[in-house]
């Protein structure tokens, strides 16, 4: 799966940054440069894939 960072800039100038195709916490490193450049982080939602290790899939818990 290709790795992408999707940036949605709302009409009021607020931004949402979403990473796709990354495994575990590498997504954070991948998109950090954009997040820092744009401004103050107000919210972060970790998705299921964040909790997967690179080698094998593990059961996923909500709310991590």
């Amino acid at each position, binding site marked *: 799966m290709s790795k992408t960072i999707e*940036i949605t*800039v709302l009409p009021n100038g607020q*931004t949402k940054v979403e990473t796709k195709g990354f495994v575990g916490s590498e997504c954070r490193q991948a998109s950090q440069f954009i997040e820092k450049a744009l*401004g*103050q982080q107000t919210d972060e939602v970790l998705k299921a894939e964040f909790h997967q290790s690179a080698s094998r899939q593990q059961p996923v818990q909500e709310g991590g």
Partner: protein
Amino acid sequence: MSHIVSIQTEVRDPVAIRSACDRLKLPEPVFGQVKLFSNSATGWAVQLPEWRYPVVADVNTGKLAYDNYNGRWGEQKQLDRFLQGYAVEKAKIEARKKGHSVIEQPLEDGSIKLTVSVGGAA
């Protein structure tokens, strides 16, 4: 897929301010001290359409100074449009610095989506 981060845009890059002005066909930003109605501000001044006073960006703090008299001296939507243009241009500049390709796409709700390809896949 891994995480979603929400960000409140801070205006800190003069190059992206200039790009946003080009993009929105606004006059070039000017650096200096600008008088607003009852006070003054120093930074990059941007003249928005039909605003009585410019918006002044302090790139050290990321804050904007302006006086639009609760919308009577300038519509909020013009400021929002500038912030959106700034964020789009800033994200594109940073992605290209890293050597990533960027595709820009307008969405129906007025948002702008940028897709940054990481790791060579253009």
